[in-house]
């Protein structure tokens, strides 16, 4: 499963298989774009992100000692915000500087009838975790999500 990103030239996401759960992978021209796409891939494990209206904006600021750990923290921050605010997200903006992330998630309150979410993301894991520059101008960010 894959889809084009919203604004990234190289931006796209895909799922990769895991026995019990689901792997999410985002590509982008920068780590930030790859993080945006990985977040979309996580949402696509739950529902079609295109069905989520962008009615509310949630700002997220986090930091981690390494880029790959930052990816897990970013996805876990989104999982927490979704659970605590009873929201779903459909679009993301991420800026990363020196392992500090400033992100924005756009979405709306869960409508169980309209969204019919398939699964709940329990947590982003360190399994198959990677954040690497595959070639100049193409970053790949991925991990497995426990659902």
């Amino acid at each position, binding site marked *: *499963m894959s889809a084009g990103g919203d604004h990234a030239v190289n931006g796209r996401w895909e*799922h990769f*298989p*895991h*026995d*019990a*759960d*689901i792997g999410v992978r985002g590509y982008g021209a920068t780590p930030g774009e790859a993080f945006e796409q990985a977040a979309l891939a996580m949402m696509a*494990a*739950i*529902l079609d992100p295109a069905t989520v209206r962008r009615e509310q904006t949630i700002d997220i600021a986090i930091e981690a*000692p390494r880029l790959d*750990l930052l990816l*897990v*923290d970013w996805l*876990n921050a989104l*999982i*927490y915000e979704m*659970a*605590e605010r*009873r929201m779903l997200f459909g679009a993301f903006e991420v800026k990363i500087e020196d392992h500090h992330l400033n992100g924005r998630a756009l979405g709306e309150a*869960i409508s*169980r009838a309209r*969204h*019919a*979410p*398939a*699964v*709940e993301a*329990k*947590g*982003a*894991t*360190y*399994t198959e*975790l990677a954040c690497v520059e595959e070639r100049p101008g193409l970053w790949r960010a991925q991990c*497995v999500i*426990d*659902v």
Partner: protein
Amino acid sequence: MDLSRFEKISETAWRVAPFGGMRAPAIVYASEDLMKDMDDKVFDQVTNVAKLPGIVRASYAMPDAHWGYGFPIGGVAAFDADEGGVVSAGGVGFDVSCGVRTHLTHLTRGQVVSVQQELADALFEHVPAGVGSEGEIALDEQGLNAMLLGGAQWAIEQGFGRAEDLDRIEESGCASDADPAAVSEHARKRQRREMGTLGSGNHYLEVQEVVEIFDEKTAAAYGLVKGECVVTIHCGSRGLGHQIGTEYLREMVISAQNYGIDLPDRELACAPIKSELGRQYLGAMRSAINCALANREIIGHLARQVFARFFEHGELPLMFDVSHNTCKVERHAIDGETRQLFVHRKGATRAFGPGHESLPEALRPYGQPVLIGGSMGAGSYVLAGMETSERQAFASACHGAGRRMSRHAATRAWGGRQVVDDLRAQGIIVKSPSLRGVAEEAPGAYKDVRAVVDSAEAAGLARKVAFLKPLICVKG
């Protein structure tokens, strides 16, 4: 999996001698067919666990083992605190104390089928299921702390259950030494509206018919009668457990080096049992166990309320409640010496054999009930701990069928509506807020649960008592 890497000990036991930093051997219990079907990642993971400090005897994998996080799902390992042993947040997992309970109904199949649709509708309406569902119970800070300390005992004190249930729950419904102070503000907030909710994914509430009895005496002691129905609930510690898993896993990943622990896989993140972080995690994890025990007790109570609307004697006595994702302090005999060990079971069930002191008197001669969830179509099994369970894998057994197909592959293979219609044609009513969720949990996406329990029995982990087929399945 490549079997050439194992030494075959018996038809259902396969050993890997220590190599490359392993402190103990790895042993997988499964038939040759199940072994061949297992992902190679199980080999990597079960041998990686054997590299952790303080591991005792061996790293084990159950017949339903599959690729997990750090530990394989179906992984069992015990650690000795006095030998530098560790507690691993990865070895417990995100859904702390996810587990299964079965209530007896003493209703016949005919009685249930006569109201099957109405009962399915009422259960679906009354038991919050699926992403975004909310429970009726709002807890303030004091109430939350009491729940984290009291588990099912707390739920019963609040009127959500019966005192006699406690006898039928591991540790009498309450994990001791829980430490609510080790539970973060985020974990608390995430649980605020989630008490008494089923969750999603592979969590379910089923009304099942006992269709086959393998062991008459044990089935009678458990209260299982062929042709009668039971209610089985599968769920865990909800958002609180997920958040505790997330936070402590991160802290253990970052701190491992400080403790001199060389992690073969970051997901095996752990801390010495005798460290401040280890103690904090144990306190938080036990709080999450109590949250799961309280949650299942409340959902059992909700099921009782629904059955009471339909049937005069809808008491639903609890047969047993087991937890799958835990680290528990237990006493085990090692080379003739009884030692206190920290036993991690990740997607594995405790399976104490006959005579174990922790079992209630009525069940003690027969061994602990082991509840094995199958898929919506294939059915489930009740097993019993065996005399041999203890020496095989610290009295542990399998926990389910295990997936054979990814969620994505399942949605490509089946549509949710098709799965619902196919199951209805077999007399099974499925209720779920998400058809895609149903497709991901399609019976064909799971391995053959019979092969798993046959292997468990042949390996001396747990013996078959009864087979259950669903009549109603409420999926999250």
